[in-house]
Each structure stands twice: as structure tokens, then as C-alpha cells.
């Protein structure tokens, strides 16, 4: 019992005053129950909100910037944009150039921003301009309608489906400059193509109709009505084989057929360059006499193969072109053939690949990147029928043979520092029927691609 001091003395025991109880007020238990319910409701609402946010996040566009480049993708994947590109800063040094016919130089070989993506799930596009060398050229500009993986329609300007090394991205080729077969295979052309992969990419096909380009060239405007049919069949038949040595083998064949009729102003005939990018063959285009012009059927055929196992890669292709040519009243069927055998070995153990090497320990992961040793042999030979009527043997070599070695360092995927040495010998191409002087080219490249 509580004792209280009142007025200086102790009072008697005091009963605590009892609060007036309101019979309508909720009981303590009821109030607790209500509070408990409110807390549970708030927690559940928070839980549902988190679920809703997580579900909404899946639908939100995603922006990524990583080793795969800069991408924006819609939540459902039906729209995507990739902004990328590559810059290749090169040097060319020609050794033993006592006559100073060749120019040592630094150059921007390629400056190519890339815009590619997908719209409405079934339609792709690619835009690749090039400002290398201070000129502005549209390299690729095309659209693709994808009905199925095995059936796509591609239209616009893009690489003709012929040369194996030509079809490799410029960022992934083993050497700084492509070998001789790419001097014959068409480069970019305008046209329509059906393309696709069958049986889980065991089989790839391309077949299309194009404006038609001369060997090794690109085209933006066709000067004639004639078109070229181009096609390629490329197989990776042992992709699912348990035999490791066979899995990386791909073989194919490609070809073109069409007609080309040139004029004195636009002869429609090729010229060929060395890997150092110096011209060593062209048809007669005398300003006084009549120039040789393309005048009829043109075809090409190219068997090709790529094989890789572990750090070893081998690329081989052979190509033959043929063109009916006339000069005045004289006509002939003249062609050229070229081939190459190129090999790569990744010293740091990464797998060789047609699509470039990915370092296992890039420098950003405190590694040293990947180092690749490359070597090749390549030849190009022009038919004897070209000489002397259609090509001047004192200026146009009839054969070129090149061997080259190189070292590529990849500090990161698609960042490459490369050094190549290549030596090209010629048959003919100098005054009096002598052989043109060898080209000894030391090439370097610093490439950034993203």
C-alpha cells in the first residue's frame, strides 16, 4: 500500500484513483490486434511493392557498357542499339627501298564508328562509315529481315559472300593487311541476299544478287545493267563431334557469276596491290591508245577452310577469277588466281578463333593479355593471256609471292598492338621484262575496337 506524505505528516493509505472506464473504447487487446494488423499490412504492402519493382525492372530498358561494348536494350529484347567502332593507327616502313618508290608513313587505316541494332525483334540494321585516310566512305549500310535463323533477307551495301579472310572483321584478321585472295574476292557491294544458318549453324549459306564489283573493290554506284549472282556454302560438319581435333574444322566454297561491260572512262577491270598496299598490276589504260575494258562474263570460285584446336589456328583459301576482256578488236578471257595458307599460335594459351582472340587474363584483371604468333604464305598470279596486249609487262607484274610473320598482343579483347614483317617478291613488272624489286614491309598497328 502506498504511503504518501501530506501536509508534513504521513497520511493514511491512499487508494489509487481509478480512471473512468469508457465502455465503448476498444480494449487493450483489440488495440494491440489492430496495431499488429497494421504492421503486417505495411510489411505485406512493402513485399508486394518489391515484387512489383522487380517485375518492372525486367521490362525496363537496360544500358550496359562492358567488354561487349555499349548497348541499350528494351526489356523485352525487341529493340537494341549497339554503339561501337574501331580505330586503327598504322605505320608502314619499307626496308631496302633504295629507289624510294615506296612511301614510309603513319596513317589512320580505319576510323569506323558503328551503329547496329534490332528493331521490332525481327529487323536488324548496321551502319558503318569510315573516315580513315581523311576520306568519308560508307562501308556497310544494310538491313536484315529475320524470318527464321535459317532464312534472313539482307539488303544494302555489305561484303559479298566470297572471300574467307575478306569476310573476317578487320579487327580480327591475323595480319595487319589481308593476303592476296582478298585482292580478288569482292569487297563491299550493293545487293540483296538470302542468308541463314541451318542445323544449329552446322551449315551456313548465302546467296544473293549484287551490282557486281571488280576484284578486291567496293562499289557505291553501278554503271551498268548487268548483275552478279554470288553464293557461299560454309560447313562446320564436326561441330558436335566428340573428336576434339575435328570440332574446329570449317570448310566451304563460294563463287560469283555475272557480266561486266566497261567503258573507256570506267573500264571495269581490277588492279592488284601488295600487302604493303602498293599497286603491282593493272590493265592497260593508256590515254593515247585504247584502254582494256571488261567485256563479258566474269566468274569466281573459291574453296576455303578454317581449322582451330586450342591455341592453333589455320586458315586456307584459294580463289580464281575470270573476266572476258577486250582492247579494241582484241578479246580474251583473262583471270587471276591467288591462295594463302596462314597460321596462328597463341603463346599465352588462349584458343585460336576466326573471330579473334580473347585474353584469359587481360591487363584490367592484372594479367598481361594474350600474345599471338602469326605466319603466312600467299601468292597471286595473273594469266599469261594478259600480257602484253592487255597489261604492260614493264609495269605490271604477272606474279607476286609473299611470306610474312607477325606478333599480336591483345591487352584486352579487341585491343591489339601488332607488328608484321612481310616480304613480297614479283615476277615481271619492271622495265625490259625484269622483276620488280621486292617489297619488304614492316607494318605496325595500334587498334582499339569497342
Amino acid at each position, binding site marked *: 500500500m502506498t504511503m504518501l506524505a501530506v501536509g508534513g505528516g504521513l497520511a493514511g493509505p491512499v487508494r489509487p484513483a481509478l480512471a473512468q472506464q469508457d465502455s465503448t473504447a476498444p480494449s487493450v487487446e483489440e488495440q494491440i490486434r489492430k496495431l499488429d*494488423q497494421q504492421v*503486417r*499490412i505495411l*510489411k*505485406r*504492402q512493402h513485399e*508486394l511493392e518489391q*515484387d*512489383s519493382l522487380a517485375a518492372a525492372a525486367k521490362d525496363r530498358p537496360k544500358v550496359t557498357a562492358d567488354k561487349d561494348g555499349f548497348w541499350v536494350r528494351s526489356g*523485352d529484347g525487341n529493340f537494341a542499339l549497339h554503339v561501337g567502332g574501331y580505330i586503327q593507327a598504322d605505320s608502314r616502313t619499307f626496308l631496302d627501298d633504295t629507289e624510294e618508290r615506296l612511301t614510309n608513313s603513319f596513317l589512320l587505316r580505319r576510323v569506323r564508328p558503328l551503329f547496329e541494332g534490332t528493331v521490332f525483334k525481327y529487323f536488324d540494321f548496321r551502319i558503318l562509315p569510315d573516315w580513315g585516310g581523311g576520306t568519308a566512305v560508307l562501308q556497310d549500310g544494310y538491313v536484315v529481315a529475320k524470318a*527464321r535463323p*535459317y*532464312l534472313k533477307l539482307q539488303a544494302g551495301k555489305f561484303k559479298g559472300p566470297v572471300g574467307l579472310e575478306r569476310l573476317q572483321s578487320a579487327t580480327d584478321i591475323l595480319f595487319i593487311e589481308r593476303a592476296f585472295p582478298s585482292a580478288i574476292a569482292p569487297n563491299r557491294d550493293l545487293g540483296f541476299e*538470302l542468308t*541463314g544458318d*541451318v542445323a544449329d549453324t552446322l551449315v551456313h*549459306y548465302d*546467296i544473293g544478287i549484287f551490282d557486281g564489283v571488280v576484284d578486291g573493290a567496293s562499289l557505291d554506284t553501278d554503271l551498268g*545493267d*548487268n*548483275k552478279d*549472282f554470288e*553464293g557461299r556454302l560454309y560447313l562446320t560438319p564436326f561441330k558436335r563431334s566428340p573428336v576434339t581435333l575435328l570440332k574446329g574444322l570449317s570448310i566451304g566454297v563460294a563463287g560469283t*557469276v555475272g*557480266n561486266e561491260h566497261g567503258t573507256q572512262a570506267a573500264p571495269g577491270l581490277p588492279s592488284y596491290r601488295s600487302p604493303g598496299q602498293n599497286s603491282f598490276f593493272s590493265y592497260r589504260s593508256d590515254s593515247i591508245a585504247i584502254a582494256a575494258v571488261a567485256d563479258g562474263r566474269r566468274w569466281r570460285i573459291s574453296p576455303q577452310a578454317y581449322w582451330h584446336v586450342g591455341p592453333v589456328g589455320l586458315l586456307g583459301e584459294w580463289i580464281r577469277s575470270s573476266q572476258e576482256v577486250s582492247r579494241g578488236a582484241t578479246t580474251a578471257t583473262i583471270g587471276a588466281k591467288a591462295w594463302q595458307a596462314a597460321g596462328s599460335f597463341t603463346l599465352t594459351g588462349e584458343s585460336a578463333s576466326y573471330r579473334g582472340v580473347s585474353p584469359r587474363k587481360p591487363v584490367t584483371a592484372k594479367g598481361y593479355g594474350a600474345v599471338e604468333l602469326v605466319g603466312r604464305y600467299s601468292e597471286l598470279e595473273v594469266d599469261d593471256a594478259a600480257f602484253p596486249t592487255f597489261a604492260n609487262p614493264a609495269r605490271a607484274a604477272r606474279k607476286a609471292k609473299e611470306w610474312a610473320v607477325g606478333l599480336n598482343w591483345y591487352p584486352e579483347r579487341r585491343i591489339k598492338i601488332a607488328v608484321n614483317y612481310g616480304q613480297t617478291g614479283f615476277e615481271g613488272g619492271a622495265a625490259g621484262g625484269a622483276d620488280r624489286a621486292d617489297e619488304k614491309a614492316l607494318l605496325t598497328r595500334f587498334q582499339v575496337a569497342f
Partner: protein
Amino acid sequence: MPRATPLGARLSLLLALPVAACSAPEAQTAPKSVTLLNVSYDPTRELYQDVNAAFTTYWKSKTGQTVTVQQSHGGSGKQARAVIDGLPADVVTLALAYDIDAIADRGVIAKDWQKRLPNNSAPYTSTIVLLVRKGNPKKIKDWDDLIRPGVSVITPNPKTSGGARWNYLAAWGYALRRWGGDEAKAREFVGKLFHNVPVLDSGARGSTTTFVERGIGDVLIAWENEAILAAKELGQDKFEIVLPSVSILAEPPVAVVDKVVNKHGTRAVAQAYLQFLYSDQGQEISAKHFYRPRNPTVAAKYAAQFPKINLFTIDEVFGGWRKAQATHFGDGGVFDQIYQPGKA
């Protein structure tokens, strides 16, 4: 373009070959194994777990083919939208015909889908009942009690959940009967009901979780099968079922998704899968999971499990699903007008 030449003709044929080869008819021999995706509404998880196991055994013994049925569950409306947006369902087993109609309207399912199976493609039925806490402390006896102040009602969101739409229409139908067909009174009644809803889950299973596991609310408006499941299995001796004076006959339909089965080559097995729901074995499984079977023999066997309730149909009271959907659940419909969260 060059004139057609023999070479051109040969190349044209070469062009046609990959297309012809790739669009050749399905192989005459069925593959050894096949996978189906069943996109279903929220509370059917346990049902289809058992249905799938039984069908797999049945189909293997009948055809030798191994079939794997994958499941997707969620609010019926959300699931329908997912299928429209490309979720590759071979079959849909949704809460209401309107959601399958929505898919059919996009050309993904044939428009006559409902006629392809018996009973308007609804192999089982259900209804809407009330689940309360043990002892029914809030003295819930009928729909009227759900609008009393202090009664907390759990029901999912009619914009996403098929079950929620059945709940809403059951309440509306009750109110029409209560007030002699007065739509304004019904609207007021349902408005007061949703005023007592503290949490709106996206699907029926979510609401069951809210009520049973999170312990929120005094009464759950639920599918009959969900209520029985909760009372018997999820919270033994914790809940009671209150049968309202009147409720709605819910007919969850099923359909083969034509566009997907044509692409996958799974039409035969998908059709067989849905037909299995009508078989004696399928009907038994439905009943065991507290769905009212269509088969009279099986229904009689499980009669004690399914008390008689005074039921009305959506056609009788609302003129069908398309009309009900447009009036009540479309954007700006009655539900959007009466349910505005945060407002008194």
C-alpha cells in the same frame, strides 16, 4: 535485271531449295521426348503437379513418348498478356474465358477455341466462398458482413487476377439480388467492400499467402478450392469456410495455343493433355484438389466435399465475359472508378 537464262533458272532453283527444305512438313515420326508449357492461373500449382505426373505416365504408356510439362503460374490476366507478348505456351489453363478470348483476338489461338472441348472448354468448375479465422471472430455470415466497418477483407486485384474478377462479380451479383437489381446499390456495395481491402495481391495465391501466412485480414474471398486447401492443408484448425447465400459459377477454361503448337509441332500431345483433364483420372485429380468435376460419376463420388450453393452464371447476370470485362474491368471501368487507393 538480266533476262532469265538457264543459269539464272538454275540459280533460282538453288535459291528455292533452302526455303523448301526448311518449310517441309513436320517429320512423320514423333520425337522421343517433347516438352509442353502450360501457362495457368495462380492457384492451380498443386492441381497441375498431379495432373502432369499422371499425364506423363499415361502418355508414355500409350505412345512411348516422354512428355515433360513445364508450368507457369500467375494472375490470369497477367498470364494472358504474357502469352500475347510471346510467352511460348503450348496450352493455357486460365481462370476465365475472357482472358483466353484476349489471346484469341491477337490471332495466337483460334477464335473457335471454346467449342473444341466439352463444356465450353471448362473441364472443371469452382465457385467463390469466404474463408474466415477459426471461431469466426468477426461473425461473417454472408456478403453483407464484408462491408461492415472494422472488417478487413482480402481479395486480389481484378486488373490482374481472374479469381479477383470472379470475386468482384460474385459480390456484385449478390448485391443485385439483395437490392432488386439496383446497379447503383450494387456499385455502392462493391465500393464499400473494396474500401475494406488493405492489400491487393496480383493473384489468388498471393491473397491466400496474405491471409494465411501473413495473418492479415478477417476474411478471404477465395476460390472454393483455395479455401478448402487453406482450411484443410495450410492451416489445420485455423480457418473456417463460410458459404455465402449466393455465389457465382466459375468455369476456368483451357485451350491449345495454336500458333505455338504449330511452331513446336506439339499439337497432338497438347490436345491429348487437355483431353486428359476430362478423363476419369483427370476428373478424379481435379476433385481431389477441390475443383468441382464435370463428370457426373466423379462429382457424385465427391459430393460431400462440395456443398450445394445457390449459383448464378456470368451470362445470366452480366451478359457474358466480354460485356462484364468492358463494363467493370477495362481501363476507366467501374472498378477503376470505385477503387482509388489512399482515398476514403
